[in-house]
């Protein structure tokens, strides 16, 4: 598991690209690698949870999330540039932060997860 965690950040970086469209106020997450069905891709709630728990997003941001199985793409549309930049910044660091959190959790660092909030189950 430890080896897996060490390689996780690179796997995430290599297999997910982040594209921004400043004009349309859209961020696209493009997934590469093995094709995933709708369930494997995830839903809007999971994406919001990811931004919150792994990305540290604290506030409620208005986002319109579209998931396209065909193109294996998440499109997140914002209502203003400020919100988009906020989420873009979070996404840029999210893979590293998620891998780091996992590593801390692996060695039993309960403090690291103390204030993360909760997933929507």
């Amino acid at each position, binding site marked *: 598991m430890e080896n897996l965690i060490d390689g996780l950040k690179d796997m995430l970086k290599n297999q997910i690209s982040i594209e921004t469209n400043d004009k349309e106020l859209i961020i696209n997450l493009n997934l590469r690698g093995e094709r995933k069905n709708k369930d494997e891709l995830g839903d809007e709630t*999971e994406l919001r*949870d990811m931004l919150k728990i792994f990305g540290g997003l604290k506030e409620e941001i208005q986002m319109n999330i579209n998931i396209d199985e065909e193109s294996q793409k998440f499109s997140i549309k914002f209502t203003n540039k400020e919100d988009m930049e906020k989420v873009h910044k979070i996404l840029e660091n*999210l893979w590293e932060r998620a891998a780091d959190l*996992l590593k801390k959790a692996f060695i039993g660092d309960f403090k690291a997860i103390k204030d993360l909030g*909760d997933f929507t189950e």
Partner: protein
Amino acid sequence: MSKQIITNNNPFHLKWNFPQRRTYKGYTTSNIYIPMRDGVNIAATICIPQNLSSEDKLPTLLYQTRYWRAAKLRIPFRWVLKETSIFSPTPTLFTNRGYVIVYTDVRGCGASFGSRPYPFSKEEVKDGSDIVDWIISQPWSDGNVVSNGISYTGITAELLAVNNHPAVKAIMPGHGLWDAYTDVAFPGGCFDLAFIQLWSFVGKNLDQNNSKPFRELIPMLWLLMKGVKAIDKDSEQKFLKEAMKEHVLNDYVYDLLCDKDFRDDSLPDGTMIHDISPFNFKKELEKLNLPILSWCSWQDSAYIDAHLNRFINLKNPHIAIIGAWNHGAGYSADTLNPDKVDTIPSPTERITTWINFFDTILYGEGIQGKTLFYYTMGEDKWKKTYVWPPEGTKRQRFYLSENNCLSNEKPDSEVGEDKYKVSFTASSGRLNRWWTLLGLPIDYSNREKADKKLLTYTSEPLREDLEITGNATITLYLSSTHNDGAVFAYLEEIDNNENIHYFTDGNLRLIHHKISSESPPYNIIGPFHSYKKKDASPLIPNEITEVKFGFRPTSALIPKGHRIKLAIAGADRDTFKQYPTEGRPTITIARNASNASYIEIPIMIRNNN
């Protein structure tokens, strides 16, 4: 002459004898339901080496769990990892060596249908046979099935052999119980309230597809896992939701056992705790003479008793391994050398050994006889024996003496006793040998503080190195102000810097103190307490009673100059139920010529002595 070989006995460096087979790269995964004899669908995840031709026939490793056979990971991890990749290590090692792996959720658990009255029920055990029937009917199967696992899955691996299915060729129970009463629920007759309660709580949540309890226990799993993996055809999770509804009928061990005390207490369907224990199936386990590789750790709960009892009692060809690590070998745990972090084999080293064992059984010459490899804590050495306890030991007594001393001399005075008012706040912590059943690391570095609440006795500095290998015992002549209670005895060493290092312990609920004259249900080492209702013997307040019980087996080297310390408690707050539930007893331990309390330690006679 002793058969022991003192050096080069690391079981993870053994040379095995089997022909080389084709290797594979990568594997494909599928998730399906396998129907059982009664129509219950068991969820299975199947990992098959990639690029098999129709002529390729492979053996199968079966792994039956109650903790989700495969996980639906959270995003973003789900985007890059397979549902099986969080297993440590990943299935790749097995699939690359030409094994198909079948992971199943036992009935009533995960994505499987059905319900469970308690763990390891008859129906759950029979499912193993149905699953093997399904496996050997698959086009990729060569008709051979082996099974391994750690903890619950180690027990399902062992119980698979009970079916005597001819396709099952070898089993590998790791860190598993042998006697459900003494090894996990009631060690020494004391209810392991903390573990049983937490384990039931986790089980209840897992069976309802909720990973939240992991947040407080194993945070990594909470971060990684959203739930159990549904079968491939169930993208809407309709089957999964149906299965959850059936799980509502499950019963959980805490609810079943919290008001129980005795080995022969019945569960609602009339089953007794020992009916589900592997020892109860000794005949079935021996019938086909299946080879066994079992492994455990000195500091893993009472599973170390289980491990040695399995080794002693089964006639099967058997390789047994005892290391110094926590439950499941995730963390090192040589408590005499707590800074040493490399007592565990790497996952790759470990799994390679497991595959080599299976290859030797399936394609090589097999194994003969019984061999036990064990690690001596504090010495950092692997050793080998063919019998337990090893040949070449003698027993040495240390008497409880005045001024809290341990002495080799029996007291000659007719008076001498120590009074101890039980502290119900005494605790061995939450990183002890019991909590590790949840996969936690082991840490006994708090003994100095813990011992302040205990009655202790310490020896003079040792004149020679002392290797303690085997099962020590304690004999106390005690009286109590109450008719119920418990004794927890810890064996520790004090080094030259006054650091205290725990190395083993034993405990007994005092109503079980009677030494039974009946034959034990299986061969045991040390005093036999039946834990049955008819043998319950409440103490007569203030009357001296002989109380004798075993410490958990160990192998520990105490260097010259260090001292041995015995610490006695009447409770272990963070783990065990309190006895008695009301009142606070004062225990009086006699240490005089007529009633000489003592510990008896198995000493390995060493060449340098």
